[in-house]
């Protein structure tokens, strides 16, 4: 089957295509005529001020929130028109890292990581544990943390566990909601590097909501800016610095933006 999650086969359709999306709550229009295309293998950062509906956009793409109008195509299929079974199959092709981790508090770290495996794969328990441990190692977790409870973990370890869980089925598409929020700068930089490395070697497409300018410069191929209820710009960060849109200008050329720019170029040279 050509749809198997695999780096070998590369179906042509881009992972995410959003056309004319409109999200409305009562009289409050969050998105109107929003268009966004993400190409395969790209790491795209989504930025926007508070209340511009970044999380609403993510929920719409994940199928958690039905849009008022418009179409969302994942791998060429309109997710608003999928039936239960097709949606499940689609969901096995993407992984999500929620903002606060969303680990199941009743389960240990390794059990959390293996939840998608128990749902989708038919493996022996020992084999499943090995794959879970392998994903933990990939996500940079110490393997002796396997039997800890989520309540015993630090913020960085919660994020890494959630990343290991998001990656356990080797998704083609990875959604990250503020992955570095609440991490110390060293942990955040390590997390950025990890995501970049994984996306390169596993050919992942990454859709990342972030406020962290350092992350944008370090790992994003492109940045999509949400403002005025739509995506006003989609370009690499170095291009967006030159933008004359007031919010984008302020964002990239404010005091924090400038310090990240210098660091970003410093890394490159």
């Amino acid at each position: 089957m050509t749809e198997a999650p695999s780096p070998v086969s590369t179906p042509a359709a881009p992972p995410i295509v959003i056309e004319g999306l409109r999200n409305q709550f009562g009289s409050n229009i969050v998105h109107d005529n929003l268009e966004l295309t993400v190409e395969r293998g790209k790491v795209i950062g989504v930025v926007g001020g508070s209340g511009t509906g970044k999380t609403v956009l993510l929920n719409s793409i994940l199928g958690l929130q039905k849009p008022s109008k418009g179409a969302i195509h994942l791998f060429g299929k309109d997710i608003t028109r999928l039936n239960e079974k097709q949606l499940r199959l689609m969901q096995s092709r993407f992984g999500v890292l929620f903002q606060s981790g969303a680990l199941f508090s009743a389960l240990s770290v390794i059990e959390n990581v293996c939840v998608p495996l128990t749902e989708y794969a038919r493996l022996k328990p020992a084999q499943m544990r090995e794959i879970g441990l392998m994903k933990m190692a990939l996500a940079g977790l110490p393997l002796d943390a396997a039997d800890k409870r989520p309540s015993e973990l630090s913020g960085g370890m919660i994020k890494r566990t959630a990343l290991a869980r998001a990656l356990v089925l080797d998704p083609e598409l990875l959604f990250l909601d503020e992955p570095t929020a609440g991490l110390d700068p060293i942990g955040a930089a390590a997390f950025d590097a990890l995501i970049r490395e994984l996306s390169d070697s596993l050919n992942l497409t990454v859709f990342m909501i972030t406020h962290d300018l350092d992350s944008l410069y370090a790992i994003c191929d492109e940045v999509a800016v949400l403002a005025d209820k739509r995506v006003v710009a989609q370009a690499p960060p170095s291009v967006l610095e030159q933008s004359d849109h007031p919010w984008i200008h302020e964002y990239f050329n404010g005091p924090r933006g400038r310090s990240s720019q210098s660091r970003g170029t410093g890394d490159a040279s």
Partner: protein
Amino acid sequence: MSKADFKIETPPGGEARVVSLTGDWTAIGLRDAGERLKSALKSAQEIRIETQSLTGFDTAGAYALRAALGEHGDDALFADDPRIGAVYALIRDIQPKVVEAQKATAQQKPNPIIARLARLGRRTEEGLKDLGDLNIFIGHLVVTAFLSIITPGRIRWTPLVAQMQQAGFGSLMVVCVTNFFVGAVIAFLGILQLQQFGAAVFAVELIGISVLREFGPVIAAVLIAGRSASSFTAEIGAMKMNQEISAMRVMGINPFDALIFPRLAALILTMPLVTFAGSMAGLFGGFVVVWAQLGYGPHFFSIRMTEYVPFVNFFVGMIKVPLFAIAITIIGCRLGMNVTEDVISLGRQVTRAVVQAIFTIILIDAIVAMMFNGFDF
């Protein structure tokens, strides 16, 4: 989705065995392919891998392959297919570590008897500590209550009144309806049994004594324990999880003043009233059945009730209500304060609160029943 599989060929003249992988070497397609490959390659000297007919490959497949290849697991095997090589390279050094970690956890498993003894010891220690914590909590509450009584300025009236409304009078309806039915059922069964001795009229005394002394107070307390002990634990526990209790402490607000004393006072003040209303509903339920079954009207019922049911029954019934109120508040609030940061502990403490509160109510009821046994005036 096709299952992961492989074919092994030994070309004539060549030393190397050629393994051609087929199907999906992914978490979903893998099943037992890795183990089969491992046993097939046991005696192999040199291996080459063909990946042309592979339809899917992910890190789980790479892991199984790495485990199967063992010492032959060199990156050079995948020189023809760089994308598969990249996935494989990611896993190459991780796999031995995972195997080691698996071994380590297998070795760590302690002797089951020692593990049980250790758990028993830990439980005992926790139980003793819990008992100590309970005493500290009660001490705090007594001090707070005493200070509030001598300096009423400390009392926070808004939460007090809100709790009276919510925890107290909010339960009026359900307490009355439940008691009505309980009274009716007692009357029904009582009449049925007493009629056999031609003493059906004694059903009135039966209703009066059982409802006023036992059923009215206990049913009201059990219902309020179910409603309020759980909601106290959930409210305070959720505040604890949200760091609201810490925020209060930092601002110099004592949570005992702000949260717990209002709940205690509200239940002590309202539960007797609710219980009284419930007892009356129980008597009314009994009366309806007596009237329907025996034809004794309201006049007869009220005279018989006042003349033959001693006042002590009502007294014994009402005297335990404040004790119930105190038990419900202490259990509900203390377990709420015990909630730690995770959601599971909130659920567990709410369950414990309801079970402990109902158990304690029955216990108090039994103790009071023994104390007032034979008491008469």
